[in-house]
Structure formats: structure tokens, C-alpha cells
């Protein structure tokens, strides 16, 4: 399969690989997917007192498109508010990475991951709308 330049770039040089302390009250964790389906994404965000995402980390088990989708997402969410981050659409990710139709589910997974991470921190902080 031919990959787009952008997928290859994120795959060769993934941004923000790593792990944040998921016990911390400033960290929201979203883990989505399943090993049996061939992809699992763990996306974590570090959020300051103003509700701004200061840092983001990911680790992904999956194909190149799944890795690229999560890597791109960590770049996009930094500096955003929780609500802005949760509003990111999978179609934007798919478009930016020029994902072929069979790989759209990778971008859907990335959208699910950020929504789950935002929900996690909102629950931790006792906010509504989680």
C-alpha cells in the first residue's frame, strides 16, 4: 500500500511519544481500540488550571496510519481548551493525512481517543458534560 508523505513523516518521526502519570489530577487518559482488532491507542493530555492542554503524549499499537493519526493529534491538541480538543473531527485528521478509505477507521479511533481523554479529566475534576 502506498502511504502519503505526511503519514510517512509521522511514522518515521512520531511526535510526543511517551507516557504521562495517569494518576495525576492534571492528566486525562484515553485508551481506545482492542488488540484483537489490530489497533490500540493511548492518548494522554496534561491540562493546566485554566483548562488548557499544555502537553500531550501517545503510544499506539497499530498500522502506520493509526500511529500517524495519533501522532498528529498530539500536535493539534496542544494549546487548545478541552472543549476545542474534543471538537476535533476524524475527517480533519483523515484529510490532513490523506488517508485512503480503508484507513478512515484509524482517524475515527484518534477522535475517540481525544474524546475519552477529555472525558477522563473532566470526571477526575468533577466537571459536568463528561
Amino acid at each position, binding site marked *: *500500500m502506498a*502511504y502519503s508523505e505526511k503519514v510517512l513523516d509521522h*511514522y518515521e518521526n*512520531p511526535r510526543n*511519544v511517551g*507516557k504521562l502519570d495517569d494518576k495525576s489530577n492534571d492528566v486525562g487518559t484515553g*485508551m*481506545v*481500540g*482492542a*488488540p*484483537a*482488532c*489490530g*489497533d*490500540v*491507542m*493511548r492518548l494522554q493530555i496534561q491540562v493546566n488550571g485554566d483548562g488548557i492542554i499544555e502537553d500531550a503524549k501517545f*503510544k*499506539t*499499537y*497499530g*498500522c*502506520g496510519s*493509526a*500511529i500517524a493519526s495519533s501522532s498528529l493529534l498530539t500536535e493539534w491538541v496542544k494549546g487548545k481548551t478541552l472543549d476545542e480538543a474534543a471538537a476535533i473531527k476524524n475527517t480533519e485528521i483523515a484529510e490532513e493525512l490523506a488517508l485512503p478509505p*480503508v484507513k478512515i*477507521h484509524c482517524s*475515527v*479511533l484518534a477522535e*475517540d481517543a481525544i474524546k475519552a481523554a477529555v472525558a477522563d479529566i473532566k470526571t477526575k475534576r468533577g466537571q459536568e458534560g463528561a
Partner: protein
Amino acid sequence: MQTPIYLDYAATTPTDPRVVEKMVECLRLDGNWGNPASRSHVFGWRAEEAIEEARRNVADLIAADPREIVWTSGATESDNLAIKGVAHFYQRKGKHIITSKIEHKAVLDTCRQLEREGFEVTYLTPNAHGEITPAAVAEAMRDDTILVSLMHANNEIGVVTDLAAIGAMTREKGVLFHVDAAQTAGKIEIDVNAMNIDLLSISGHKLYGPKGIGVLYVRRKPRVRIEAQMHGGGHERGMRSGTLATHQIVGLGEAARIAKEEMALDQAHSAALRQRLLDAVSDIEEIHVNGDSPKHLPGLLNVSFNYVEGESLIMSLKDLALSSGSACTSASLEPSYVLRALGLSDELAHSSLRMSVGRFSTEEEIDFAAQQIHTAVEKLRELSPLWDMYKDGIDLSTIQWSAH
């Protein structure tokens, strides 16, 4: 050493230069390009002579009589012709066929078609080593069984079937025995008489011959009858009409001749390289050999690296040409049905790599490949949340995953 390195001999082999030379002789203007069915002039006679020499070479390879060799377009056609041909000819005798879950699609889809036509098919499950045992075949036999169709070696895991034991049984019961030998013809010994094989499929492009040519062996004594699929000029004793492709046939004949002559050499070479590769990667943590039967093809190795996904692994190994059982490399998004039939978890099936070496592979290539695999697995595990969890001692089977 040139990259990418070819480690996909089970998909197709390069054509041996000696084969190419023979083929070209049949294509040149001053060469042997006549129609072998032309009986009235020397162009036809010469072409027919070349065809018959090729037929002898293929027959010799499997200890058959040249009159038992039918030319086809490849193993897919041979499988179709054998299975549908027998089913349609013998349907008044019975409508039950035995095959296995790990057959090539050329066999499985043919059987599915026969099911739609009212035949009944039993699909045997391999044991955990990937073997279809004679005992499993015996258990599935019924009074109305007309055909057992099994592969000699599986194309994904390379496990070799005990044909002699199964052939003895089918012969005793008067059931026909078809063998898909696409992966083994020219690679390991086949004796259609000693093994009591009635029909056998061969593909040219898996034994250093050209693509688009194959053989169906059809036994004469006791005589096996098949209904033709392709009707026309009555070539190949009516079993497969169509003008014979002299250059393809001559190519396969030469490939068979070389394979028989050099089998011991080829086997030793492939087996040594496979072992070298396995030795060089076996220190990687959480590596699993799929189809770990002692009876396997000399040059094929299928391994899974747990917690690493196959497609991304292949993407990292861009200097290596190999294949994966991962869903993402197939159109269906389902992991390999062969690995699943072995009882492998979806995770391990997604993490599999098939590497196959052959006549033109070198030690230098294997060493390079092993080193690339080390680097890639390390990199991807660094990226893998599952590897993190494994290292933290978390049992992944206890986690509630969100299936999607």
C-alpha cells in the same frame, strides 16, 4: 547486496536464468514457435517434441507417467479442475468432500461453490502445530465421501502434511486423493505412487519457472476421471482444451528438471538460511514461531512478535520484501484465516511475519534482514502501549477493550 531483499519465495520465485533461456528459444522468430497441435509440418512437430520433453521432466519430478500430466494455467486452475472435475464426474457415487480450513483460497472457494451446488464439505481443523493429521481425516470419512483434497505444505506456515499415511487410507477406502503441491513441487520429494496420490496440482512460478503455467497430475491406473472445465479442441486428452503455450510449458519443464537435479542442494541451502534467520531473531523477547511442526518447508519461517502490529512492522522493514498475516495487509481487515485456524489469538495473528527464502537468497541478506527486524521491533515496542502494559506486569486479557 541489493535492497529491497526478497524474502517472499512462497509468494513467487524469480525465474531461473536457465529457464528464461529455454523459454526465449520458443519465442524468437528463428526459434521453436510453432503450434504443437499442427500435425502437418515441422513447426508443429518440433513444438510438440519440446512439449513432450517438458512433460517427461515434470512427470519425473513426481515419479509419474508423462501421460498423466495435464497442462493448466497454474495451481488455481489445477485445483479447480481437480475438485470440480472429480465432484461432477463422481456425484452419483457420493457428494461428500473432505478438505481443511487452512487450504489455499483456490481450494476453499472451489469447495464453497460445490456446496452451493449441493455437495457437502468437511473442513478439517489443524492441530496447534498446524498439522492436518491422518487421524483427523480418518474420522471425517463417510460412506459417501468421494474426495479428500489437502495441501502438501501450507503457504503461510509451511507445515508439511503426512501424505503417505493419508493416501494409504484413501486408496483402501476407494476415495480419491487430491493434493495441492504448489508449495512443495520441486522443493521436497513427491512420489505419487508411494503416496497413493490420485490428482496433484503444481504451479510453475513457485519452482523458479514462469507464471501462468501449471500442471494437474491425473492418475491413469487405477484410472481417475474428471469432467473438463474448458471445452474446445480436445487438447490434453479432452481434459483441458486450448492451444498449448510452448514457451511457458518448456519453462516449467526446465524448472522441473533443474529442481529434481538440484533438490538436495536447494533444500540444504534454504534450510541453513532459515535456521540462520531463526537463530538471529530468536533472542527477541516474546517471539512465537507459528506452525512449529518438525515437518516444515525448508525455506519458510512464520513468526509473531507480540505487542507489535504486522503492517507497521512491514512498513518499518521497507528494505525487506515479505508478507504478514495482519488484517491490515489484506483487503478484508480480517487477520489470516490460517493462523486463526491454528488457534492463534487475533493479537498474535496481527503480529505475524512470513519470511521465505530460496535458491538465490544469501547469508548476507539474512544477516541484514535479522538486524533490520531487531531495530524495527524495538522501535515499535517503544511506541506500543501494549508493550508498556506487558512490561508493567499487566495481564492484557483482564482488560475490557472497546471493540470497534
